[in-house]
């Protein structure tokens, strides 16, 4: 088990390094001239050259990459072109805001979708199952800004029961903050619900059809006990993996939701950085997202390994 996890960790680190190379070269090589991008088309060439020299972007790319990479290892993410201040002073607060949103989404969606999936599986083929499955599938295919707009029109403009945009006044209580975050969180919940519920349903159906459940039923255990002790334990295993891998999706969804609701999170920060050609900010932000995603998948692997005796006891392969 230790070797297996070590292998996964190593792969994640390699993936991350490759990602950093891709991000760096895409960000630095393709758009050409950062000095020109900052100073605009009318600045004197000498000023552009001077700025490029100060930024260090007139050096060979490999040297630039090395400076950037070693800086990252020391926690220096560079200076924002746009704000002329360290990237980290914007990145960390934004990350905090986004985590709040993501956390609330998971708190709502995980119990809800697992419950939905299990209920659908226990009623396989009946109307309840059809309703849950079809609703879940339809919701998960809706882009966040579409469901977000419909929700805003209904709840913020029509019924006036929820606030829009999503910025809670400073120093608001947790309840008020959650109330402000509810509208942006629901579109994320919609998309996630379909995925997780489908996995929970599939896992439960598979467990229900297994020999050990038949044995448990035949030896006379009450249905409730069979479901709790034998079905759920096995059916939730793949679901855990899916939940972790959905973090990647969730971050993409955050970009959209944060833009629509004008919420100062990481997604919107990267979005504005891309628009303003603020490469240090863009590169650092994208890398942070890569780290979050790879950490989440790694965590899923660890959980899966801990929970699944076949991997835990069977060694790496």
């Amino acid at each position, binding site marked *: 088990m230790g070797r297996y996890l070590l292998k996964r960790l190593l*792969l994640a680190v390699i*993936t991350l390094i*490759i*990602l950093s190379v*891709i*991000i760096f070269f*895409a*960000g630095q090589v*393709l*758009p050409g001239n950062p000095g020109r991008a900052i100073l605009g088309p009318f600045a004197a060439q000498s000023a552009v050259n001077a700025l490029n020299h100060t930024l260090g972007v007139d050096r060979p790319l490999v040297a630039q990459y090395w400076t950037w990479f070693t800086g990252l290892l020391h926690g220096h993410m560079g200076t924002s072109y746009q704000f002329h201040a360290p990237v980290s002073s914007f990145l960390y607060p934004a990350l905090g805001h986004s985590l709040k949103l993501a956390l609330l989404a998971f708190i709502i969606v995980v119990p809800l979708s697992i419950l939905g999936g299990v209920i659908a599986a226990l009623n396989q083929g009946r109307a309840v199952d059809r309703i849950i499955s079809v609703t879940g*599938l339809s919701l*998960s*295919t*809706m*882009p*966040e*800004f*579409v469901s977000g*707009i*419909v929700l*805003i*029109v209904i709840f913020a*403009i029509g019924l006036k029961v929820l606030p*829009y945009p999503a910025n809670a006044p400073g120093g608001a209580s947790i309840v008020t903050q959650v109330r402000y975050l509810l509208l942006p969180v629901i579109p994320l919940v919609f998309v996630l619900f*379909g*995925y997780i519920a*489908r*996995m929970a349903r*599939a*896992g439960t*159906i598979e467990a229900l059809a297994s020999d050990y459940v038949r044995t448990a039923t035949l030896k006379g255990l009450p249905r409730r006990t069979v479901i709790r002790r034998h079905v759920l334990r096995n059916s939730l295993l*793949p679901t855990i*993996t*899916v939940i972790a*891998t*959905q973090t*990647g*999706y969730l*971050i*993409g*969804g955050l*970009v*959209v939701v944060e*833009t*629509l609701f004008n919420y100062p999170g990481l997604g919107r920060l*990267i*979005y504005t*950085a*891309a*628009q303003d*050609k603020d490469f240090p900010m*863009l590169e650092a932000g*994208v890398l942070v997202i*890569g780290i979050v*995603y*790879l950490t989440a998948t790694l965590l899923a692997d660890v959980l*899966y390994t801990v929970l699944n005796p*076949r*991997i835990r006891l069977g060694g790496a*392969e």
Partner: protein
Amino acid sequence: MATEDLRDTLVAAPGLTSVEAERALTDPGSLAPVPLTGGTGGAGGALDSSVRRIRREHLSLLLHSPTFIVGGVILLFWIVCAVFASHFAPYNPLAQNLLNINTAPSAAHWFGTDALGEDVFSRVLVGAHSILIVAPLATLVGTVAGAAIGLVMGYFGGWIDNIFGRLVDAVLSLPVQITAFIFIVALGPSSLTLILVIGFVFALIIARTVRTAVLQERELDYVAAAKLRDEGALHIMFVEILPNVIAPIVVEFTVRLGYAIFAIATLSFLGFGIQPPTPDWGADIANTYQYLAAGYWWETLFPAIAVASLIVAVNLIGDSMEAVFVQ
């Protein structure tokens, strides 16, 4: 080992649809070719006629499925709009009328007018054009490129497969939206950028599926026979193996199409696609949502409903096709 491979696939393919993911976990073999046309390769005359019979049965099953009909009607409506709407829309979608801005829906303007006094109804009808061109093109680019990469990865294996595999992992560890940001900085916003971004990401996802299928084909006798005949690698990949993995590629294309509409609508909402004043659902929503707080909901809601209806239509069609073909 199977479990690990499987989870690799799931983990690194955020774009995997729930249906695929579920099928993959419950039935590991299912990511391999699905015999759509009743078997491929070595077909004789008798098989040909039975293939045709099965196709006819599938078609009649589809035409009797209510979900397929509803989806088809909605899709057809938007296709007609995409092609002809500029002829029958009540107003010129680009005609501004600054004396008549932000008016609520009325008999004259069914969906109201926007901040420039443009007729929202006409803009929604004509706006079908861009997404219905960009989405299939992007999916096609992704499928063709993905099939080629997947064939190379699966056929050669070894270090080529490893290097490509790591690259795919790295890129797919980012959400599409974020990958798009990097493209947008490099290429600037346009329909072409959208097609390239989506095509690129889809190519990586499809390459994984095709690679898995090719890995199984590679071990079969006809490949060994071709090698003995001294055929070149290109010939074996594209003439011998490709026809036998075409089924999963076709399935991928149809599944990806729905996802492409999702992604393209989202990216045009973020300002990466068609630029105003050309009508486009995502771009129109991006330009009007700031007026939501002022209560001008019609400018944003109707294009949003148009996006939703197109996505529902494509999913209904995909669902009914899957029910008929993959029993």
